[in-house]
């Protein structure tokens, strides 16, 4: 063996981990090799000195502390045997370990949200003004529709005028201007389809006494047989007895279409 290999054995020699033959072999080498002997002595000095480094004793309290740790653990084990106790322990652990700051923070956030919401809300006032806004907006929309309808009624295209008439369904409160315009259309519009549509629209507005009166009045003015029949039907539908006179007057007209005549007679009978 070379010196290097002997030197690798020094710790084994120091820890007494060699059997007798190995031990004597190294000792023989050390006796003959001054360098290795010097090396070994240095190693041995360090080794011995390490043994003199003070090794502290654990404090006396440690033992009793551990006994109480054991006692606590025993209690915990017993508590764990019933499910409620187990939950309590889990909750306690969860609370103490991590949840505390997080839970506090989330509670704070909820509180800030509640206070902020309360301050911003100011009940009553805002609801009223909100409703007021909606009211004014919807009345504005209705006004716009009215204006649009009135101007559309003047449109040269018959289909546009029918559309205008149909807008009356959307108007929330129909005022005098609209009713007048409708009657003008009913009496004077050159297109029979427009007049029919107008009649329908007016029938829907028959809650207004003015509309009923106007309808009765316009019976005289209708020349077209279709309109005459339609208006007679409308009178039956509305059960407008005051129209009987006008209808009878219509019957006396010389150029009345025979089919229309039969129809109007039927209507008059129903009304009487």
């Amino acid at each position, binding site marked *: 063996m070379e010196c290097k290999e002997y*030197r*690798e054995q*020094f*710790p*084994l020699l120091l*820890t007494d*981990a060699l059997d007798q033959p190995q031990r004597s072999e190294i000792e023989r080498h050390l006796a003959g090799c001054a360098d290795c002997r010097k090396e070994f002595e*240095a*190693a041995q000095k*360090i*080794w011995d*000195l*390490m*043994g*003199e*480094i*003070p*090794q*502290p*004793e*654990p*404090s006396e309290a*440690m*033992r009793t*502390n*551990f*006994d109480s*740790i*054991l006692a606590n*653990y*025993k209690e915990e*084990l017993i508590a764990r045997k019933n499910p409620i106790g187990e939950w309590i322990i889990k909750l306690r652990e969860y609370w103490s370990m991590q949840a505390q700051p997080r839970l506090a923070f989330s509670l704070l956030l909820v509180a800030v949200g509640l206070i902020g919401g309360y301050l911003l809300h100011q009940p009553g006032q805002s609801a009223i003004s909100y409703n007021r806004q909606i009211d004014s907006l919807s009345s504005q929309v209705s006004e716009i529709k009215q204006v649009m309808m009135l101007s559309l009624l003047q449109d040269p295209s018959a289909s546009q005028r029918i559309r205008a008439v149909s807008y009356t369904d959307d108007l929330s409160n129909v005022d005098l201007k609209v009713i007048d315009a409708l009657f003008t259309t009913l009496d004077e519009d050159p297109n029979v389809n427009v007049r029919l549509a107008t009649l329908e629209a007016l029938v829907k507005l028959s809650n207004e006494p003015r509309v009923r009166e106007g309808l009765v009045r316009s019976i005289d003015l209708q020349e077209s047989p279709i309109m005459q029949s339609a208006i007679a039907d409308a009178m039956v539908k509305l059960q407008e007895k005051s129209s009987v006179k006008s209808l009878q007057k219509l019957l006396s007209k010389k150029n009345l279409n025979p089919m229309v005549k039969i129809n109007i007679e039927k209507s008059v009978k129903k009304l009487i």
Partner: protein
Amino acid sequence: MLKVKNGDIGKMGMLYERYHRQLYRFLFNMTRQRELSEDMVQNIFLRMLKYPGGFMGFGEFKMWMYHIARNAVYDHFRKVKRTPAHSDLTNYEERIEGEQSSDARMEKEEEIKTLETAMGKLSDENRELLILCRFQELKYNEIAKILNTTEGAIKVRVHRALNQLKSNYLKIEN
């Protein structure tokens, strides 16, 4: 040890009695902090009590204990990012005051202090190896089991660690 696995707390009390001093010294030599080492001892034993599953039921309790202790030590080192080992020398200083020290004694104290500094300058691995070998007086095969390597490798590494310590010591002394 199987009894502990079955939840026998009394048995763990016995093992504590037998091993806590040895464990404490290992932790103290590694960390050089007394209070920390005491806390670690309690935590390690409590851990072994709570999770006896880690002990496979073969081998020695002592080996298992060192496994857990090493993990705790290296976790601690990672946490403190190796601030220069603050050594707790109160014990040592108390002793100086307590004794009527002769010159020879003074000289010895000086050498020990130098050696402690030299130990502090070793890498964690080398220091641990010498602690296990010299202070804990474990056998090479036991150290090999704890460090999960072969006995031959441990013998070589102890030799190198001792050489390193020697050269650290000489450097400080001169």
